[in-house]
Structures are given as structure tokens and as C-alpha cells.
């Protein structure tokens, strides 16, 4: 599970400091720790723990078959990972998947959420159609799409024929495989972003639109000069959530293609899985994990820094 309320920080932390200013009464101190302890224990054991264990075993030539850490190898696992063509190839596949899916999954749901906001009736129907796939397990999605991608007899293969096109070999060629995975992902996760946009649109005050329409603004003007600018912060949130989610792709590619054909779509997580659990090179896979981990954290931190800078700039702008 990804926790992705990256936006919460700024507002929460500031109000918190105020509350801790005074010295706490003795009973409260004890009660506070008792209430927080179950969370903290699980948090330290199972969220912080794996990070530390990952760092530790990445410095040993641990194997996944036997227990025990093996012998100290220093940073040589990192040197191996960073010079491995397979690692960077899989890193590129995750990035490519992100580049292919992010524009579609940031812009299309925005477009449809805006269209949906102009329609009063049947909102439940759009929500049902677009959002229902989100609650379906990845493997069920893959089973259904694998069936629809079947050469000759599959539904999607035949739809290509209706338009006079030849369907690519969805599961047997690299380009076909990317098409297959991207289309599946679009269908599966579209609704999530759609819901985020829909909620943000509902928060825009009705009066802004009324004022605009009295001034004679047509629907297109209302959308381009009110809705879209006011949705910028939501777009930025959807963008970072999507980038992080796409960089962590595993399920679809693993189940539908097993990273194939010939490893040409294998994402990083599957590379780690293969080296760690199929080749049993635990220490090496842990080093790969840490490199990947640092990249993901850097993306989140980078986004937060950019956002705070923008917010600060906007504040300066408004006080001037």
C-alpha cells in the first residue's frame, strides 16, 4: 500500500507545535506514550526495520536460501548494481512505463471529470463505470485482458480489425506488450484520478461560474479560465501520485507478461524479485532495493521542495 497524502505535511506540522508548547502533566505524558506505543512499535519494526535491514544486508553477500547474513563485502554490491546493464534496463522499463502512463492518467481523467461536472443527471453511473475497475484485483484484470488480447479470437484484437488495422502481437512483441500493459493500466486506474478531480471540482464555488455566465462566458471559456486554473494544485497532486505509483509498477507486467518477451518489459521491482528470490542473491538484490528506494524518496522530496517553493513564491506575490 502506498501512502500518498504527500500534501498533508505543511498544514499539520505547524498547528502541532503550538499544542506541545507547554509542559505536559505527568499522567498525560504516560498516557500519551501508552496510546502511541502500539503504532510506534509496528512502525519501527515493519516500516523502519526493513530500511535498516536492507542497508545492512546490502553490505554482505547474503543469499536468500540460507539464514545468516554471509560475509562482509563492503560496497561491492552497489558497484555491481550500478554497473549492471540488466538493472539499468529494468530501471528504464519502469521509467518508460511512467512516461507512457502518466500523461494519459493525468490528463484524460481531468477531461472526463470536467465533462462529468457539466452533467447533472446520472453522476452515479459515471462513477460506477470509471471507478469500479479500481476495486478489482490486479490478477482478475490481467485474466480478463489476457483473454481479450488473445490473437485472432480476442475482443481487442478484433476491434483493431473493425477499423481496418492489424492488431500487434500483444503478448509476444515488445511494442505490443507495452500497448497491452498501458491500455490495461488506463482502464484499471483511470477511476482513481477521476475521483480526485471530481472531488476538487465540487469544491469550486458555484458563484464563480454564475458570475462568469452572467458576464457571458460560454462553457469553453468557463472551463479554460475557471475550472482548469483552479484545479492546478489537484493536477500537481495527481501528477506526483501517478509518477510514484507508475514507478512502482509490478503486478500487471509480472502477471500478464512475466516481464517478457525476453525481459524487454521487466520493471525494477521484478528485477529485484528475480535476483533476490529466483537467483537467491540477497545482498545484491538488497543493494538494488536501496538504489531504487533512494530514487523514489528523492522524487517525493523533490516534489515537496518544488511545491513549497511555489507556495512561498505565491505568498510573496500576494503580500506585495
Amino acid at each position: 500500500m502506498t501512502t500518498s497524502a504527500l500534501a498533508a505535511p505543511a498544514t499539520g506540522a505547524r498547528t502541532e507545535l503550538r499544542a506541545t508548547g507547554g509542559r505536559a502533566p505527568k499522567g498525560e505524558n504516560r498516557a500519551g506514550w501508552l496510546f502511541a506505543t502500539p503504532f510506534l512499535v509496528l512502525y519501527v519494526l515493519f516500516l523502519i526495520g526493513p530500511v535498516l535491514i536492507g542497508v545492512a544486508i546490502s553490505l554482505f553477500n547474503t543469499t536468500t536460501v540460507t539464514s545468516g547474513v554471509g560475509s562482509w563485502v563492503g560496497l561491492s554490491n552497489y558497484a555491481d548494481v550500478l554497473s549492471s546493464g540488466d538493472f539499468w534496463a529494468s530501471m528504464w522499463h519502469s521509467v518508460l512505463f511512467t512516461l507512457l502512463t502518466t500523461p494519459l492518467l493525468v490528463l484524460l481523467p481531468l477531461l472526463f471529470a470536467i465533462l462529468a461536472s457539466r452533467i447533472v443527471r446520472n453522476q452515479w453511473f459515471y462513477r460506477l463505470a470509471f471507478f469500479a475497475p479500481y476495486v478489482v484485483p490486479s490478477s482478475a484484470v490481467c485474466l480478463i485482458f489476457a483473454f481479450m488480447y488473445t490473437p485472432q479470437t480476442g475482443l481487442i484484437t478484433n476491434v483493431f480489425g473493425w477499423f481496418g488495422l492489424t492488431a500487434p502481437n500483444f503478448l509476444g512483441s515488445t511494442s505490443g506488450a507495452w500497448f497491452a500493459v498501458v491500455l490495461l493500466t488506463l482502464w484499471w486506474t483511470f477511476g482513481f484520478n477521476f475521483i480526485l478531480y471530481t472531488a476538487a471540482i465540487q469544491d469550486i464555488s458555484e458563484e464563480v461560474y454564475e458570475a462568469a455566465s452572467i458576464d457571458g462566458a460560454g462553457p469553453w471559456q468557463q472551463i479554460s479560465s475557471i475550472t482548469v486554473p483552479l484545479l492546478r494544485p489537484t493536477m500537481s497532486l495527481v501528477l506526483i501520485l501517478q509518477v510514484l505509483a507508475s514507478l512502482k509498477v509490478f503486478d500487471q507486467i509480472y502477471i500478464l507478461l512475466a516481464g517478457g518477451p525476453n525481459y524487454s518489459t521487466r520493471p525494477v521491482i521484478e528485477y529485484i524479485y528475480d535476483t533476490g528470490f529466483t537467483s537467491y542473491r540477497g545482498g545484491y538484490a538488497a543493494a538494488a532495493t536501496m538504489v531504487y528506494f533512494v530514487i523514489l524518496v528523492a522524487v517525493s522530496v523533490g516534489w515537496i521542495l518544488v511545491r513549497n517553493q511555489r507556495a512561498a513564491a505565491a505568498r510573496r506575490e500576494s503580500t506585495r
Partner: protein
Amino acid sequence: MTATAVPATGTGRRRSGRSGRPVEAGKAFNRLAATCLTLFALIWLVPFLWALITSLRPDNEISAHPMRPWSNNWNLDAYRSAWESSPIGWWYVNSFIISTLAVVFTVVVCSMAAFALVHLGFRGKSAVFALILAGLMLPTEALVLPQFMEFRALHLLGTYWAIVLPAVALPVAVFVFHAFIKGIPVALIEAARLDGASWWRVYSVVVMPLCRPAISAVAILTFITSWNAFLWPLLVLTHVKTQTIPVGLSGLIGGAAIQYAETMASSVLGILPLLAVFLLLQRQIAQGVANTGIK
């Protein structure tokens, strides 16, 4: 923007009748929008319907007329053979137990932590707060390998606990509860304290009953995420009978191109429970996603 809006409920239909004086152009535009949207929504439903239709047709008919959306011989045979050929019943049971445990523990543990952060002044509170905040950025699914090593050392591999325990300390759930509990009037809590209630009583009798919307948001989303979790259960649950629905179903992928009806019947069975939950709680689920951004 995220965890703050939980108490606001029923955003469903604030937007009826956009403008006082609908312009002709606006009407035409809206009609076009409705057409476009309905068309796409129907396309979005096709994979569900196609799986359902296929699961009810006999295999020989599917291979003879793959594109025909009706059958001369509707039947449930594929469901019987799907049920018999793989332990779907067990997968249901495992998924249900794991998700339920995850929900109960997440709600209790995270709401307790949030309660402490809001109402109890304890030393080191801001450090704890910062730690949980930092946890929002922790990409846990990238860490399955060290996590696996840890659970092997703890001898918990293959158990429900291996799936449940790492899911419980969920930073975003703490922030959902935190935002909600902050909205509860302090006077209520002070009154209870003056009456001599212990902090535990304040938490369990005063605060939690008022937190129902936050509880349902966290519970629903924890249930969906843990029901659908794939990679970690795949690594941990290696015996077919101990697997969950997503892990078990993924093993049937080879059949998608051979035993059409049976494979589609299995996926329909895999989809059903959560789809039923979704149909019942559509609005709450959408609300919860919008407020927490759990992905």
C-alpha cells in the same frame, strides 16, 4: 489538502443547475459532453460484461464464434469447474480473514496514535509527529526483499500475521484520524475528564463513536488495499491453500488462452466480493479516496 476534508460529507450533488440563465451554446455543449461521457462509460463496462458473458458460454461455442455476445446454451458449468479445479473457497476465506484483521488493527492502532497526538501532551510528541509524517514518503512496496528477510528471521512466513502486521502502521490513516479528532470540540473531552473518566474511557466512549466517518473511510480503504495486495502475499504465502484471491488467481493466467469460460468464471468469482462492497458503499468509497489519496 489531503487528510483535512474528511468531516465534510455528502458532496454528492451540490452542483445541480450550473447557471441561472442557461445559454443555448451551453446546452449544446452539455449535451455533447453527456454523449461523449456516456459512450466512454459504456466502453469502460465492456471488460466486465465480456468476462461475464464468456463465463456463461460453453468453450466450443466460444472458439467457434469468438465475437458473438450471446449464446444458444447459457450455463453455469464453468463456475462449477472453476470452483472444483482451484481452492477458490480457501482463497476467499484467507482474503477475508487477512483483510478483516488488517482493518481492525489499523483502525484501532492508528486512531489511538492520532488521539494521543491531538489530545495528550507527551514529551517527544513533535518528534513522533515528524516521524509519522516522514512515513508518508516511505515507498514500502519497494522494500519487500528486506521485509522478507525480517519475517523469515521472525519465523512468520506463511502466516496471516506476515501480511497483517506490516499493513497496520499506516501513516495516512493516522492523519485521517488526526484531522477528524481535531474537529471534535475540546469541551466534550474536558467535561468527560472532569467527570473522572480515564483517558482510555475518553478515547473509547467519547471520541471513537464520534469518529464514525473517519473510521469508515480508513476501514473501507484498508479493506480494499489489503484484499487487492499482490506482491507481498505472493512472496509470503507459498502454499496454494493459504493464498489470497489475487495471488491464487494470478496462477490461472495460462488458462486465459485455452479454458476461456473457466478462467473468466474464476475472474468473475474473484471480482464479485469487492464489487458487491463497492456497489453498496459507492459514495463512501469515492469520498474516502478523495480525502486520503491512498493508492
